[in-house]
């Protein structure tokens, strides 16, 4: 089966960079009209323009996913522009390092707002449109939806929460033609990972350690995660709902997990 999204409309939150951008590019390349949601006005416009340049359909809608009015407006604007919604890729997220003691209340609140409430709000306003003609939601979780690395308490809690939200929504809309799945990437070469590495004294060493944390011997590429997302959003995954698909180079296979490996982003950012 070839994947063809011609005539379909997809929203990608956090679509300006990294996994979101790679996913928006792939969806658009397969024929979908893509609405990029992002808080970064300049990067969002740039990415949408670059994707649309080759004749694909892609537009940018600036919004902060943690603010209900902004999400509602962006969803309305996308629907006005493209006539409906078939696919939601809920990808927007931030990373903060810290344990339960060093994480401040403000940091905790901010991360929960963006990572969890953001997904809730985008889903809340998109689902009524998906109910009209069926569709698929793919939520970007993490290997940390299933396990933990050190010094990453708020992020781990939020990513676990996203897997809970995935399962709950998959069940709530199973009879309505809406599938809801979650991809759980390992360390992926994105601006977010490079930022995390930059917090450590020796960023390149962090990347090398991240490479070793994956049995495949390297960190992943954004395009590889985008491939998994596109698959889950496509008719090829028509019997898949409520699933968590690891895209982690085998990271979670070894006993003992990855939490205790020295030098990963969590340990490296511990001050």
């Amino acid at each position, binding site marked *: 089966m070839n994947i063809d999204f011609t005539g379909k409309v997809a929203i990608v939150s956090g679509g300006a960079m990294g996994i979101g951008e790679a996913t928006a590019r792939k969806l658009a390349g397969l024929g979908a009209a893509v609405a990029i949601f992002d808080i970064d006005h300049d990067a969002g416009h740039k990415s949408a323009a670059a994707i649309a340049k080759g004749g694909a359909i892609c537009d940018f809608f600036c919004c902060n996913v943690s603010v209900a009015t902004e999400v509602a407006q962006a969803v309305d604007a996308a629907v006005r522009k493209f006539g409906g919604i078939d696919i939601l890729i809920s990808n927007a997220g931030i990373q903060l390092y810290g344990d339960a003691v060093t994480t401040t209340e403000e940091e905790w609140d901010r991360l929960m707002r963006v990572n969890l409430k953001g997904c809730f709000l985008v889903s809340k306003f998109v689902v009524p449109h998906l109910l009209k003609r069926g569709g698929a939601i793919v939520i970007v979780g993490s290997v940390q939806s299933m396990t933990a690395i050190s010094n990453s308490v708020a992020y*781990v809690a*939020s990513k676990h929460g996203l897997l809970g939200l995935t399962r709950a929504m998959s069940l709530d809309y199973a009879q309505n033609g809406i599938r809801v799945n979650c991809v759980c990437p390992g360390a992926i070469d994105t601006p977010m990972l490079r930022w995390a590495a930059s917090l450590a004294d020796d960023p390149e060493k962090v990347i090398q350690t991240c490479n070793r944390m994956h049995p495949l011997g390297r960190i992943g590429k954004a395009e590889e995660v985008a491939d998994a997302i596109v698959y889950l959003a496509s008719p090829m995954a028509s019997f898949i709902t409520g699933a968590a698909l690891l895209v982690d180079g085998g990271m979670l296979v070894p006993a003992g997990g990855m939490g205790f490996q020295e030098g990963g982003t969590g340990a490296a950012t511990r001050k």
Partner: protein
Amino acid sequence: MKLQGKTAIITGAAAGIGAVSAALFAREGANIVAVDIDRELLDQLSGQIERAGGNCLAVAADVSQRNDVQNVLRSATDRFGRVDILFNNAGIVPAGKVEAISEEQWDRAMAINVKSMYLFCHGIIPKFKVQGGGVILNTASATALRAVVDRACYTTTKAAVIGLTKSMALDYVRDNIRVNCLCPGTVDTPSLAQRLAAFPEPAEARKNFIARQPMGRFGTAEEIAQAALYLVSPEAEFVTGVAFAIDGGLSI
């Protein structure tokens, strides 16, 4: 007695799993710091524990508010000198699918079910480190392992609790601080009674809820409290980072 000389903070202690756990921990020798937003029920519990020969300090608090949490920790230390066990049990159960849940419901459930645990742990872990250890137990839910319909927000909060639990278990595994969580199935508590009462036909709803129980019955608060006791007791010293399902087979 398994908890002789220990002091345990229990949130959501006024009713259900929290109240029964407080009474059980007290019978096992623990000093109890009972925390709830319901002052009246707390005082009843406290009186009941003290009449049975136990020690109980009741502190009314909104667990989602930093100042209230700090007040609990201060009061606990003032009265008992130190805290050994933190049982984060307070929680609410909002109903609904994602498009029907209001932003206010979402924020409130996240604050009470998840942020409260962060706030208590944030405050107490430095004390645990200084005294050489401590035990934390969080109440998650079987719904965090297997979803049920109309509980999108609740499931999200409880899944986040499992993440919080594992994360802290790892971060403090060398500090002699154990962190686990309980995943109870449907338990016959005042909280369940409230939820059933919200249905148009409560008796029918009760029957339906029981019908989905693999064992054909609800759990009891006593059964959950016994699991809590095990996880906070020295017998579970090699247990950390687990999501302990106690659900009559619901998560199979």
